């Protein structure tokens, strides 16, 4: 399988600050890849290196086999920045039209309306960016990133301003993209989100990859806490999946169950463990 994104020995220093200390990472075609890490870990720097906005100090980054920042690399890529702004005076449809023109997309009005529909902005095509809420702008940013049917999507915290329904919409969108064979690199602080959709995850801390693998590989049980008539009982090794069985067994044994709590998301444990000590 060919690679949508290949990062090897990537180093980046900003003056005296080293943001990335030799990062290796590969995203396969059609793979949903999650990038986790604390604030300042270097996630955005990595993504920006992949779109040619930041010049690596060392190492290489390739997008679909072409050097990052080259025209061929960028043509096959869509990007939503962590901190972006669209001109306030510009209407949603107009903005997408500009990006279509710049990207050389021939999708026309049908592509624009399909994308707005996909991000839940079907009714806002004529609305000015300045009259949109932050979450609506983020949705528009997603639509913009999808222009020209990119093979690789780089999303830097795409749901930070979205309401729960918006987050679910993005999850569904990411799953549809995977079906279409689009690779996605997703930066997020929302572990549950990453756990739900990503095929693979890398945890990066202080500029180094400290753990990588599928969410299942990385996670281990965090325990399940059940409030029964006899008091609170903790099943320390149990995972979230086991909660229904535990409850069924307790009920079967004649216990009254008043509440169930899955203790910390298991990926969260793995994350905190990996990130501690850095």
């Amino acid at each position, binding site marked *: 399988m060919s690679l949508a994104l290949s990062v090897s020995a990537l180093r980046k220093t*900003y003056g005296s600050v080293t943001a990335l200390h030799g990062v290796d990472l590969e995203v396969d075609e059609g793979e949903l890849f999650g990038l986790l890490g604390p604030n300042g870990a270097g996630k955005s720097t990595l993504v*920006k290196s992949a*779109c*040619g*906005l*930041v*010049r690596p100090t060392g190492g290489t980054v390739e997008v679909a086999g072409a050097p990052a*920042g080259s*025209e061929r690399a*960028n*043509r096959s*890529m869509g*990007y939503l*920045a962590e*901190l*972006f*702004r*669209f*001109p306030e*005076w*510009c209407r949603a449809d107009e903005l997408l039209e*500009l*990006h279509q*023109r*710049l*990207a050389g997309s021939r999708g026309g009005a049908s592509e624009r309306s399909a994308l707005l529909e996909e991000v839940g902005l079907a009714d806002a095509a004529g609305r000015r960016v300045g009259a949109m809420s932050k979450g609506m702008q983020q949705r528009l*940013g997603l639509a*913009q990133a999808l222009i020209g049917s990119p093979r690789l999507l780089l999303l830097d915290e795409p749901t930070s301003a979205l309401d729960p329904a918006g987050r679910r919409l993005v999850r569904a969108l990411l799953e549809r993209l995977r079906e279409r064979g689009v690779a996605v690199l997703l930066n997020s602080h929302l572990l549950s989100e990453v756990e739900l959709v990503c095929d693979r995850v890398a945890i990066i801390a202080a500029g180094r990859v400290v753990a990588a693998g599928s969410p299942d590989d990385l996670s281990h049980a965090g325990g399940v806490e059940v409030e029964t008539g006899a008091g609170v009982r903790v099943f320390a090794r149990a995972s979230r999946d086991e909660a229904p069985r535990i409850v069924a067994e307790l009920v079967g044994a004649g216990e009254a169950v008043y509440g169930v709590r899955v203790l910390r998301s298991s990926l969260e444990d793995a994350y905190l463990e990996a990130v501690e000590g850095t």
Partner: protein
Amino acid sequence: MSLDHVRAIAGFALRESLRRRVFVVVAVLTVAFLVLYGLGAWQAFQEVDEGFGDDDLGGVEPQTVAGATFLGLAMFGTLFLGTILAVFLTLGAARGDAESGLLQPLLVRPVGRATYLVARFAGAAAICAAYVTVVFVAAAIITRVAGDWWPDRIVGPALGLAAAVALLAAVALAGSVFLASTANGIAVFMVFGAGLVAGLLGQIGEALSSDTLNTVADVSTWALPFEALYQDALAGLTADTVGFTKLAIDLGPFGGAQDAGPLLWLWVVGYLGLVCVIAARAFARRDL
């Protein structure tokens, strides 16, 4: 460099100015400027008529002196307004827009960084050049109506003004690669002021026959060629005027102007190229 990208981005910048009512504000204030100018010119010509009539003042033609001085003033005003427009259309194009997050989505499309700069320059230069040309020609027509005086040259000075504001747009755009918007705006206006001072120094130097002052003025004029263009344009107003009339104009605040010859235009083109190359190279290395 993709021409379609240049057109798309320059067109988008133009649409922004339209949509944000930049042009409405500029048009209203420009009309106010021209009305004020018309009033002043009309009044001045009246005074000249009443004061001197057709008296012989030792070969000095008062109408010509008044006309050239007044249109010179209009030219200064036009250059100043055109500079404001040029600076505000470009002062945040690179760093300012990158800091606010407007730039990244465009560049990733991919729009080459040099292409982006060229597009922003083309958009701003076209607007400012058209603006100063219209205002200058309007002022000349007003002068004609108010005092029945027409400059010796009109096309050359208009082109000079247009080139001067285009040059200032390029300087402001290049500045936007290195400086944040506010700092860049301040810097470009200071450079503009320095150029004007250099021009005045040259004028004083000429009057005093001071070689040192003349050298300082020459060097600064070449370093900041928009000033040389302005001087050249001023000189064009009375290119065919001779004798004591010319002398009287030269002694005024908008005289003393020297035409610089064809070498100036060559230097303007070279200067523009140099500014563009420096800006593009620095911008290419920037982390955004």
